[in-house]
């Protein structure tokens, strides 16, 4: 049911872990629904994501999308990182089954929440960044139905 890329990122997840004294941390999802993602960001003085780590409670797709999302944002400016969409994460994984699309949305939101936390802590404004939402399933989002 999963693509080779999803399986690769599930079996060998990139950037699992925590960052001490992180520039920003975002946690989204809830245990009741079966998935929680937490993303840690280390952002340098030029507002470039130097490092990103994640911890995820969830299915194989949730772990793979977290892994891919961290890969996509490392080295990017906060502006660029903010624009990494759930669709970009899905495309990078060669697609997700329809029932797992919400995992990619959770990854997008986790990155956003971490950026929000960074902006708040450092008293800066990231243009266009929206505050994190509690329930990702209520968001308008682009669905890509594979398989």
């Amino acid at each position, binding site marked *: 049911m999963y693509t080779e890329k999803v399986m690769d990122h*599930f*079996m060998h*997840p990139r950037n*699992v872990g*925590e960052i001490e004294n992180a520039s920003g941390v975002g*946690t989204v999802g809830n*245990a*009741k*629904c*079966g*998935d*929680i*993602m*937490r993303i840690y960001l280390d952002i340098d003085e030029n507002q470039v994501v130097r490092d990103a780590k*994640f*911890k*995820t*409670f*969830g*299915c*194989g797709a*949730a*772990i793979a999308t977290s892994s891919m999302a961290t890969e996509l944002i490392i080295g990017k400016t906060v502006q660029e990182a903010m624009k990494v969409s759930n669709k970009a994460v899905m495309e990078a994984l060669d697609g997700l089954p329809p*029932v797992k699309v919400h995992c990619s949305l959770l990854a997008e939101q986790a990155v956003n929440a971490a950026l929000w936390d960074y902006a708040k802590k450092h008293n800066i404004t990231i243009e266009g960044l929206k505050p994190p939402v509690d329930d990702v399933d209520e968001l308008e989002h682009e669905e890509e139905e594979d398989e």
Partner: protein
Amino acid sequence: MIYMDNAATTRMSERAFEAMRPYFMEQYANAAGTYSFANASKEAVENARRQTAKVIGAKSAEIYFTSGGTESDNWALKGVAEAYAAKGKHIIISAIEHHAILHSAQALQRKGWEVTVLPVDEYGMISVQELERAIRPDTVLVSIMAANNEIGTIQPLKAIGEICRAKGVLFHTDAVQAYAHIPLNVEEMHIDLLSASAHKFHGPKGVGILYVRKGVKLLPFMDGGAQERKRRAGTANVAGIVGMGAAAEEAAANMNAAMDKIAAIRDHMIARIEKEIPYCRLNGHRTERLPGNVNFCFRFIEGEGMLMLLDANGICASSGSACTSGSLDPSHVLLAIGLPHEIAHGSLRLSLSEETTMEEANKAVDALLEIIPRLRGMSPLYEDFVRNNQ
């Protein structure tokens, strides 16, 4: 490969497979045929009827062949409800029934029947006192499963049967997981209807039985020809029925030895998991339990990840997590025994058979010793738990 999903389906028995073989290309006659070529098919079906009846102490005339457990469950509920609608429109089921029962009951509800759903305790056991109180003058049927497919809990069938008999209410049991696995006797347990499915005890897929006590009224579920004494239309699945009969006979003959052997491996796995993996919970009853059922919740992790990593180790298992059910909710059985959602998401079922070896059992537990810490190492819930306990 280590196959530990025997509650989902089993490998065919070689003896059952060999018994079926002649009924595809040699004895292919329709069992309803009037010519002598059909005699062998007819006799084979009747022989299987005797074999499957004997396992539960029934008469062969009380056995009806169906397409499997789901059909038998649907037929029992809907067929009895409609046949007895003049007496009353109330039925009683338990909260941990298979979907074939739950959804049949809901279908009746939509048509005006009232359904009482009995709760279960933390071990998945119904209360017979509560059942007794739930029976009303307009109750026509009680349907309580013999043994649960997820957590393996075996219900007090005899006590349930006695209450139903005393109150004049019919008793159906979904015995799909129990038939030919544990001793069942329709006389001693006062069972009026019983569903079973061949592929759960090393028979073929696509064939089952409904036992219907003589005298019980039941409207047909499949309309058509006059097969199965005009109660279940459709050309007899001769090969499948023969395979079911042979598998039932074989399983029943080996039952006592198989139960002891499988339960010993089950108990070894349970003991090892409880000793070697922290923050786990055995689901289901410790003693009133199917011999082949091991079901645990592991805190802080989710079931699908466990299944994928077990699969990568060549181990087939299943889970009651939302991700494996295709919905957002974890299994209704785990919620009914009182587990919170986040713990129910981390469930794992390993179901054994007489083919499971102690070596395989140890390999599966060894794999869990790697997999569970690995997933916990990725889990923000575990991270928070460790931080809060420092």
